[in-house]
């Protein structure tokens, strides 16, 4: 018979069930750990590392790290948030993210994470501005890989939920990209009704549902008024307001 156990996150006691990851237990307790590659309903893969926390002083991905009795987790500390800020920044610098012309703007999780982490200052990283293809061959769906952050959510959704294996990683290192299991998307058995093509799966504007863009006006978009993760933090019985990082930390 399984028994619950406790561990601490930023000094707060969290109750976890056996088999839960640190992120699962924190989600249940209303403590938000930022994440991009992980989404409810898909197998976690720990690739984006935005959910990095310190467990007993060592960094780990909270989405894959099992919760253990008595461990001490650092989540909302300047050092850990600094790691996340750098990771999110690097994602912006690695692809071609043009928010003013992106139809995912306002509901983009990468953009929302940058807002939440208070990223407004310039960084020393160069913009790589890679040359990446756009696959608009399919009548209902397009892929703009300029915006892809390689979270792999579409791969897991197509493989585990749709059972189609349409997407897969291709290449290595900086040349790694998302490929489809055919010459192009039109030649694959991709359908607009696939879970992998739904708005919940792609966190950015890489998978584009044609003729559906800009469906929500500015001011009513997903993250226009509430920061990413607010629904998890709202579960916290003692928390009055959703925590937001002070961007002035960034200037120091």
């Amino acid at each position, binding site marked *: 018979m399984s028994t619950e156990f406790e561990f601490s996150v930023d000094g707060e006691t969290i109750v976890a069930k056996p088999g839960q990851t640190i992120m699962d237990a924190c989600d249940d307790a209303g403590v938000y750990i930022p994440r991009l590659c992980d989404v409810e309903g898909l197998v976690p893969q720990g690739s984006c590392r935005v959910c990095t926390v310190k467990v007993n002083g060592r960094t780990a991905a909270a989405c894959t790290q099992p919760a253990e009795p008595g461990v001490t987790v650092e989540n909302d500390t300047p050092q850990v948030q600094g790691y996340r800020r750098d990771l999110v920044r690097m994602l912006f610098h690695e692809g071609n993210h043009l928010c*003013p012309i992106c139809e995912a*703007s306002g509901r983009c999780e990468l953009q929302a994470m940058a807002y939440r982490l208070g990223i407004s200052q310039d960084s020393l990283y160069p913009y790589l501005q890679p040359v990446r293809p756009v696959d608009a061959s399919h009548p209902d769906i397009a892929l703009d890989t300029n915006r892809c952050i390689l979270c792999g959510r579409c791969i897991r959704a197509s493989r585990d939920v749709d059972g189609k294996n349409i997407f897969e990683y291709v290449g290595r290192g900086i040349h790694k990209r998302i490929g489809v299991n055919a010459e192009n998307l039109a030649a694959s058995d991709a359908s607009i009704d696939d879970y992998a093509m739904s708005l919940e799966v792609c966190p950015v504007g890489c998978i584009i549902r044609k003729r559906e863009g800009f469906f929500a006006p500015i001011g009513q978009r997903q993250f226009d008024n509430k920061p990413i993760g607010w629904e998890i933090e709202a579960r916290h019985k003692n928390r009055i307001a959703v925590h937001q990082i002070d961007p002035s930390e960034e200037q120091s």
Partner: protein
Amino acid sequence: MKRKKRIATVSLAGCFGCHMSLLDMDEHILELMELAEFDRSPLTDFKTFSRRCDIGVIEGGCCNEENVHTLQEFRKHCDVLVAVGQCAIMGGLPVMRNAIMHSEDPLRECLEEAYSSSAKVYNPSNQIPNDAALPLLLDKVYTCAEVVKIDYQIPGCPPTGEVLWATLAALIKGEPAPQEYHMIKYD
């Protein structure tokens, strides 16, 4: 009586949308005129700096040599430099010519599309404009921070008049620019 702060503004590779937003601060512009005066700016039509300025507001990134020269002039003549808008911070729409042309030589392809190869272009000489009076285009569009040291960045396309007012009002008082959650918008 304390002297008014001096503000200089410029639009480099921008669309003047951020300057429009500056005018969109409504009645705050009267308060701003009480606290500050504009030196080199499209608003005054001064083409050069008449004196050293306290605050320089930059819209747009650098796409040609004149932009780089202007930006360096601003750095030289302004105490605090504020990059305003996505074009100044990340390159914005002009930066699309760096990569999204899907070409190994995006600048050449961009010019050829504009002046010779496009079906809608009538250009019997088939020449791309190369007059000495035209500023030389850079190999790619650069963000302001890639060229000079930038002190503050206000993202947005464009940032709202309220955000610009709040930032300028704070900088005029000598306080750091406010960067609250609702003020950070990339679009």
